[in-house]
Structures are given as C-alpha cells and as structure tokens.
C-alpha cells in the first residue's frame, strides 16, 4: 500500500547567532545550513496495517507524514501511496487519503460541524446516499448525536476532535494519516478516539499511520511501530520486541508488612524506588522467577506484582541513547535536532 525508499527531506535554514549586531549583519550576509529532517528512511506498509511513528520532537515524524500526504516534496527518494506519487496531488489520490492534525482544525468555527460535513461532501464529490450512510455510521461510532448541530466554537476540545475526525472521513478514505490526534484530550476522550480509530480500521480495512506523544495511543492501536530519530529509521517492528530490546528488565513492585532496609534489597535487583511500605525493583526478565521466589522467602512481602516497565520510560531511554550516539558522531556541529522541526518554513 505504502512504499518509501530512501526518503530524504532537507531544509535550508537561515542560521543566525543571537544578538542585535548579528541580526543586523544577517540582513546582508546570511549563513545557511542544510538540516536533514528526514535522512534516508525506507519502509513498506501493507494494506490495512496500523503503524505508529515514534520519535522525539523534531525527529522527522511529521515531516515523513506530510511527504506521504503530498504536502511536502521530498529532496530525494521514492514514495508510493497506493500507486500514486503523492507529490502530484492528483484528485484520485487525495480522495483516498485523509490527514488529521491534532493541533489544527478544519471545522468552520462559527458554524455547526454538519455544515463542514456538507461542504466536504461537495468537495469530495460523495453521492448523497453514500454520504448519509457514512454519516450514520460515523455518528454511531463516535456518538456524535446533537453535537453536529451546535456551532463548532461551543464544543469542547474532545467533542471538536470527534467532529474533526468525522469531517475528515466523509469520503471514506483508505489511508489515514493521524498526527497527534489525541493531543490535549483528557484520558477518557483519548480512549474514545483510540477506540474509534481501531473500529474504523477494522470495519473499513483502512491503512493507518499514527504519530503520538502518548505511548498509550501507540501501544493500544499499533501492532507495528517505526521509530524515527534524527531523521533516520531507528527501529521497525513490533512494540513488544522494541521494549524487550531496550529494556530486557521486568519491574517488580513489592509491598511490605514492615519497613525493609534499602541495603537488603540491593541483592535482588536494581532498586528504582524505595519507600517505607513499597519498593520497586528492575530485574532482568530471565531472573524474575528466581528473584520473586527469594523475595517471598526472605522479605516480609505482603503484596507483589510483576509488570513491564512504563512505555514512556522505555522511549525516553531509547531517545537518550540515540542522542548520545548522535552527539558522538556529530560532535563538531551539535544540535541539528532542535532545528529540524522548528524551522521548516
């Protein structure tokens, strides 16, 4: 469905040291620097797959997404989305895809969302019967109800995102590009959006690419993740395998009947947190059985749970590793990663 080969996107950014004098000088002579937002990425995504893009800010996730959607032209490399070259932005291509940007909205601000739906119906040339059917299904899946009749500006952020999704799906796209669809939403609304996206994918077999800062989104929705860091592909595979690779540890949470000394715990594993009644240990997954047995035998354990380390921690560790690796290779010109996402104009 989607094939990307050796994709590169470089920006020429104007570089200026701080200060008024430097600003004045830069009026006449500008120093430019090439920033590689995406630097040689390849992957293939099958029809109906759900893939999550992970990476720190400025890693190149959104840039890749926008290249796939045809909004940005790649510097080099090949991109094919269902037989189309996104760059050409043919109508047939645009009718197959949708893009939701969590921080940007297309709903007409002062009008009810139903008007935006109607406008999109006309723009996408959707036959009336199909439109009625799609809207019926979407409002059932998203529980839109009367929301569509209230002016968009009176809706809450979560309600607006639901309508935003409906507006983007009027033409039943086969490929969904979702950039931070749950940003700023409360936990229950995040779950609603996730459930909806999953059900939509299952019902219509749509291909889905998602970027999100919330690991929960990716963990729940995407069996496959692609990690992009410094514009390069750092990982492509299942989330479990990624976690296992970065953190081969399991996390053991111990609750005690009476206080235990920190020094007594060190023998069992790496102490993450130690409190009066509760301690947290990281233990290599192969040692879990042994350590649990010993702990139960030797410590006053009242309760014990074994869990995976939190995804957020795993990710920050992954990206921290990426940064130190990058710092080693680019020690002469530090810090392109901040520039990459902030200066794409």
């Amino acid at each position, binding site marked *: 469905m989607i094939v990307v080969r050796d994709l590169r996107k470089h*920006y020429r950014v104007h570089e200026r040291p701080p200060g008024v004098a430097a600003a004045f000088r830069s009026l006449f002579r500008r120093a430019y620097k090439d920033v590689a937002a995406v630097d040689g990425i390849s992957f293939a995504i099958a029809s109906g797959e759900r893939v999550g893009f992970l990476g720190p800010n400025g890693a190149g996730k*959104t*840039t890749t997404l*926008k290249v796939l*959607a*045809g*909004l*940005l*032209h790649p510097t080099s490399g090949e991109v094919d989305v269902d037989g189309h070259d996104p760059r050409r*932005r043919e*109508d*047939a291509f*645009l*009718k197959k*895809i*949708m*893009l939701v*940007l969590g921080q*940007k*909205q*297309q709903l*007409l601000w*002062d*009008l009810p969302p139903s*008007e935006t739906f*109607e*406008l*999109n119906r*006309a*723009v*996408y*040339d959707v036959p009336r019967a199909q439109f009625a059917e799609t809207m019926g299904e979407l409002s059932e899946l998203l529980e839109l109800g009367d929301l569509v009749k209230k*002016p968009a500006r009176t809706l809450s952020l979560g309600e607006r995102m639901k309508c935003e999704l409906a507006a983007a799906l009027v033409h039943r796209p086969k490929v969904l590009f979702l950039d931070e669809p749950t940003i700023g939403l409360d936990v229950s609304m995040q779950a609603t959006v996730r459930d909806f996206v999953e059900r939509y994918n299952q019902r219509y077999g749509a291909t889905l690419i998602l970027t999100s800062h919330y690991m929960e989104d990716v963990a729940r929705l995407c069996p496959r993740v692609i990690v992009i860091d410094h514009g390069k592909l750092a990982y492509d595979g299942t989330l479990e395998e990624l976690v296992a690779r970065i953190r081969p540890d399991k996390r053991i949470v111990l609750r005690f009947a009476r206080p235990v000394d920190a020094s007594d715990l060190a023998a069992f594993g790496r102490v993450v947190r130690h409190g009066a009644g509760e301690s947290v240990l990281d233990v290599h997954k192969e040692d879990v059985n042994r350590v649990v047995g010993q702990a139960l035998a030797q410590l006053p354990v009242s309760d014990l749970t074994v869990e995976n380390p939190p995804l957020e921690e795993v990710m920050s560790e992954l990206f921290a590793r990426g940064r130190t690796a990058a710092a080693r290779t680019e020690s002469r010109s530090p810090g392109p990663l901040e520039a990459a*996402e*902030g200066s*794409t*104009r």
Partner: protein
Amino acid sequence: MRYLRLFGMQIRASLLLSMQYRLEFVLDGFVEVFWMATAVVPLYVVYERRQDIAGWSFGEALMVMGWFTFLQGVLEGAINPSLVTVVDHIRKGTLDLLLMKPADAQFLVSTARLQPWRTVNVATAIAIFGWGFHLLRRVPSAAAVATASLAAVAAIAILYSLWIVTVSAAFYLVRIDNLTQLFNAVFDAARWPAQVFRGVVRVILTFVIPLALMTTCPAEALLGRLPLHVLAGCLLAGGLSLAVARRVWQTSIARYTSAGG
C-alpha cells in the same frame, strides 16, 4: 459544473456564517448603506467649484464613480474576506488541510468567504449610473451597456489577479496586513477618471496597477466612447493578468512548506 456546485456550497456557508450573528448581520447592513451614501461626497465637493475636470463633467465622472463603487463591492464583498481567510490559514498552518482537498486550491481559497451585504454596492452603482445619465440627459445604448459589461469583466479579472498576487506574497511575508492597506489606498485612486492623473502616476496607474483600465474604461464604454481596440486591449490585459496570477500562485504553493511541520 462541479465547480459551480462547489461555488454554491461556499456561498451557502458564507451566508450562514453572516446570519449566525443576527445583530452583526443587521449592523453590517446599516454600515454598508451609510458608506454608500458618503461615497459620492468627495466627487460632489470638487465639482461644486468646477464645471469639469480633465474633460470630465460631473455627470460623466459619476460613471467612473459608479464603476468604482461596483468594483469596491466586488473587492470588499468577495476578494478581501477570502484574503483574510487565506492569510489566517497560512499563519495557523491550516492551509495544509485545504491543500489536502481534491479541488483546485486557488478556487477554494478565492471562494472561501463572501460578505453578502456588499452586493448592496451593485444597487448603489446602478443608482449612481442613473443619476449620472439623468444629469447628462441621455440613455445609454444597448451596445454601450454591452461593451461596458465586457470592460467590467476585464476589470474584475485584473482586480482578482492583483489580489491573488498579493495573497501569494503572504507565503513569503506571512504578515501582509500592511500590503492590503496599501492596496486599498491605491485602489481609492480609481474613483477618479484616469485623465485626472498626469505623468509618471498616470503611467503607473495604466500599466502597473491598471486602475485606469478598471474604472475609466468601463465608464467610457457606458458613455459610448470607448474605441473597440481599447476594449480589446482591456480584455487582453484581463486574460493576461489572470494567467500571470495563476502562475504566481502555483509557484508560491510549490514553495510553500507548512509552518512548524
């Protein structure tokens, strides 16, 4: 045909938007009528002291005024509101979402927002023409009306093209409020017959910002004294400016890479 339908949808949305706030809708109407009433004042004041200016009598100058009022309606009713919308899109980065639509982006942008009250200008323009012909004690011939309409079409094409070029500047400058104010200030010169201006100013107003073509030509046509070759020139200029504007727009879109991407 599809675009005609789309145009209808856009007009519908604009109408709904205008009627969303009842008070604003009514106030807009009042303000519009007031502005129209004051539009002729400068011309009236000048002609109180003189019989004619640069060969134009008051009645004749009213023809120019009429076309100016008409074009101002087009500018403020259809062109400026959309301009504001697209600049907003560029600043907020929502132009991305517009570019994802399977329809011509220039069309979508151009028809994004209309101010229905500005159609009052058309009625006012007709009233001004009526007044002018009453003073001149004559009636325009059918041929004059036809040529004037053609010249007006060319004028709208030029106005629209100038606007598209201004919008394209927004891709590079992001803030173009000043540019639009300059545009409005220059456009104000179109309320006078082109012959009023002399020297460099007249050359600029004929060839660079062709205000002369925009209001003076349709006025001359209505008075039945526009030579056919000038009309042909107007139409050519209209077509040419549309082509240039299209080119500029496409180049700008190609260069556009969205903010914060």
